[in-house]
């Protein structure tokens, strides 16, 4: 597998699979991550303080006081050489509600025009596609989901919004995502999801886990508000949107 090691300062480096994108890249990254994690857990690899997954790369962060950059990089270079296996993961499957209406969907009309589809066709396409959860990043609980149907792929907005509301369901290039928090952002906003994606008091603080899959279900504004209220007051558990495990 073709790979490159990139220096990210004196205490981090990034392993990149430059020929891979999308789902295939994320799966390789996940396998490499698991290998490194089991070396750490087995006590064979010291000084790693964090691992950051991205679409086709993994960033390894070290404790600079350990001064073992070259040693760890050498160990990871060996782990990358081991053959990668075909995906055998059994991830969770989620169906998350999204309201594609009114103020929740500021870029829906523009996306419909640019893709030469009707608004309903865009909603139908975006919601029915089954997306792989590539990785969680950018913001706490923020899922990068792929792959978006070809016809809905557009580059990021040229001028990012200063304020993307929490819960916004967005698209850019071949990916879709949900903003768990209000944040600046350059993606196109198609709708709003009421389900909280991150809570530091949960055993697993991120609701979604890489390797799982997500599709969406269009809901009315009225249903959105009901769901939002029920989720906020604890009448409804976010895990109720999870269906059976993939086997």
């Amino acid at each position, binding site marked *: 597998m073709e790979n490159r090691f990139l220096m*990210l*300062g*004196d205490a981090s480096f990034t392993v990149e699979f430059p020929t891979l994108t999308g789902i295939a890249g994320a799966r390789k990254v996940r396998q490499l991550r698991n290998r490194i994690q089991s070396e750490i857990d087995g006590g064979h690899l010291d000084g790693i*303080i*964090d*691992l*950051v997954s991205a*679409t086709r790369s993994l960033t390894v962060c070290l404790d600079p006081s350990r001064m073992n950059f070259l040693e760890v990089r050498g160990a990871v270079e060996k782990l990358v050489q081991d053959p990668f296996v075909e995906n055998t993961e059994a991830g969770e499957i989620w169906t998350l509600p999204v309201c594609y209406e009114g103020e929740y969907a500021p870029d829906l009309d523009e996306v419909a025009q640019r893709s030469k589809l009707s608004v309903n066709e865009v909603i139908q396409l975006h919601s029915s596609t089954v997306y792989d959860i590539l990785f969680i990043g950018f913001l*706490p609980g923020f899922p990068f989901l792929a792959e978006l149907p070809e016809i809905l792929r557009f580059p990021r907005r040229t001028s990012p919004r200063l304020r993307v509301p929490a819960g916004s369901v967005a698209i850019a290039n071949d990916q879709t995502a949900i903003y768990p928090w209000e*944040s600046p952002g350059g993606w196109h906003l198609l709708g709003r999801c009421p389900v909280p994606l991150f809570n530091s008091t949960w055993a697993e603080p991120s609701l979604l886990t890489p390797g799982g899959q997500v599709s969406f279900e269009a809901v009315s504004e009225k249903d959105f508000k009901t769901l939002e209220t029920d989720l906020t007051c604890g009448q409804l558990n976010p895990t109720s949107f999870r269906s059976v495990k993939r086997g």
Partner: protein
Amino acid sequence: MDAALKILSPGLMSSIQDKGRFGFGRFGVPRSGAADPVFLRLGNALVGNDPYEAAIEFRFLGPTVKAEAGSVCIGLAADAAAELTRAQTQEKEHVSPWQTVTLNEGDTLKVMPLSKGASGYLTIEGGLQLMPVLNSTSTYARAGIGGTNGSLLQANDILKLKTKATPREFEKIMNKAPQVSTDLLHVILGPQDDYFSDESVTGFVSNSFKVSSDVDRMGIRLEGTPVNSLPEKGNDLISDGLVAGAIQIPGNGLPIILGADCHLVGGYPKIATVISADLFRLGQLGPGADIKFKSVTLEQAQAKYNDLEKYIETCTHSIQNYYGEGAINLVALHGSNLISGVVDAHSPGHFPGRLEDT
């Protein structure tokens, strides 16, 4: 009743910070932590705490605090003086930078604006009672985690102490307070230096940049000669991992140095990354500051890390009893080299303990 500190006025962007939150990259959680970890460590050394005990971090403008219950010993780890007002007498006392001050119940401490730099710390003897979130009490306000209730400090917040201040006859002062220069930052090129021509990289390490007004814990935007990427590469890559100190070059060519609260992944090419030994300097960069970058090797970066640790040790060992302003303290005078003066006589610009820049 627990000793407690009350925030009367929060100052600017004041928050609780410790070492930061590591190991939660898989959930997308930024690391946060003190913008200037060296000041945090030295401030904790002043009050006898563990190096990374959580403290109040402020930006440019310090808070005003009151000992709400019991007495509270505070370390002033900042290039700022403060004014202590005794509750019983309403007398005011001057508090020097890098000294401790013990507030009795009702006393207030008003921290003055920073005379230089961008971040300062109030460390609290014994530490604050805080509930760690994902192993850290550092505030990350965007996701509402850390600190007292996930947000920046507000007026009327009450911070409870783990322990009461131990009665003391005298305060402490750091005779060799840290001297932080921010005009030169050492970097290791990459991860995406191949997005730039050799001329662009040369320009990046030889030109001077000015810090814009857009400075916060997430990042520092610079102004100056744009650093242009190769036309065939552009400024949009498939997002990869970020760390504090990474220098992004967006489409306008003006560098952004990432800070402690930066996102974990990003899609702009990173021409270089500030070395670990210089990360604390980022916490002291304010608008208008001039900076240059210098490229170093991994070995040089590690040597600088060791130099910094030695420097922190020197500062820590210079902490001495403080008998008040105007009191003659021969030990302290000798310690700060004002009497022997041999080093200074030969090199007027050289202060013992000052960290060399190059």
